[in-house]
């Protein structure tokens, strides 16, 4: 099951040229681009691991693409996303976030039902991937 989080996730995976264009778009807007990765694809998992610090004051996408290449070399089997942080007054938050790398196989999520308090039901989703310990989830 293909994880759909952030921008462009219903489109085919972006090529490197397309990612470069997006990154340049962010930089031209004055946003700081950040690289994050994770192997826990649950939608409520908002805190992904950071690949280095957010990159402020860059002018050209080449520097970020270089970092992305480095990150892919180490964590190519995990989800990697780029986010653009707008520090201008009134926004001060992430303006764009999109996945740029995903595992070869995405097993998806299961729905768990829990019977509580008589006839009530509780539902929760769990990624199949997290059944295995961190770092071994996508057949590294």
């Amino acid at each position, binding site marked *: 099951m293909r994880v759909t989080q952030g921008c462009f996730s219903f489109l085919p995976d972006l090529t490197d040229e397309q990612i470069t264009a997006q990154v340049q778009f962010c930089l031209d807007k004055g946003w700081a681009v950040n690289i994050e990765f994770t192997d826990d694809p649950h939608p409520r998992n908002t805190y992904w691991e950071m690949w280095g610090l957010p990159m402020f004051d860059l002018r*050209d996408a080449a520097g970020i693409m270089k970092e992305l290449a480095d990150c892919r070399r180490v964590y190519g089997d995990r989800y990697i996303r780029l986010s653009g942080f707008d520090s201008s007054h009134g926004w001060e938050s992430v*303006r764009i976030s999109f996945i740029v790398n995903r595992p070869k196989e995405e097993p998806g999520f299961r729905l768990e039902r829990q019977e509580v308090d008589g006839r009530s039901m509780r539902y929760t989703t769990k990624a199949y991937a997290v059944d295995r310990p961190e770092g071994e989830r996508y057949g590294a």
Partner: protein
Amino acid sequence: MTQAAIQPVPDQPAPVSAIDLRKEFEAVDIASVLAQLDRELIGLVPVKTRIREIASLLLVERIRQKMALATTFPTLHMSFTGNPGTGKTTVAMRMAGILHRLGFVRRGHVISVTRDDLVGQYIGHTAPKTKEILKKAMGGVLFIDEAYYLYRPENERDYGQEAIEILLQVMESQREDLVVILAGYGDRMEKFFQSNPGFRSRIAHHIDFPDYAESELMAIAELMLTEQNYRFSAEAREAFIRYIAVRKTQPLFSNARSIRNALDRIRLRQANRIVAKLDRTLTCDDVMSIEAGDVLASRVFAEGAAKGA
């Protein structure tokens, strides 16, 4: 929010077999940058000639790219050597403009750094620091002033070497993404290149900045004054010509920078002279003109006389 979304990646334009040179020349508008260089930088004939050559080479290279004849990206890293105050930094800024117009750097900004910005203070601090600067310089020009400080042979555990290695690697592997310009005083740069042969071979253009002649220094002084809306009176001009002759023989003379400092002090004395007489009406002319007295009060003359006596 994401207008830049998915655009089809443009295909490479088909190679052309003939190009109108004049049209191409005018299209990149390199002439105006060179004219500005001539107008705003006095003297420096060998430097200007060299920049002209580089600009021509890049123009031809650009045409060759359009004709699909260019096989490799030209190496553009440069080294500027010369005495203090000969315009190395100023030319580096212009160089970024030229490279940008010709399309050899994508953004055309200049990141000016020294050893402190590249080299860390403890183990493991240098690499991230250098890489961060390199990332900022991507798409533009990285100007490393007094580059020889990067290498300190007297301390074998100096972190400068680590910065040098990262620099060399990026200078080689990401030639399309940034241009590195090293600058520094001639003799020390020579020593630096001798101990780091990797740098010399990765730098295509070595440009030497000559010292200014006295007449050029005078022209620089007048240009600076005009920019600040001041002017010499006839006698003050004579006095300043003498000032330059004397100052040049004294130690720590740093060409245009010394001239700028001298002018700053002259303005100080001029202001003091004006304020000394309060009961009068000032005209525009009074405030703009610098008199001989403002120049002659300089300490330089006193020291020159003492030495001559």
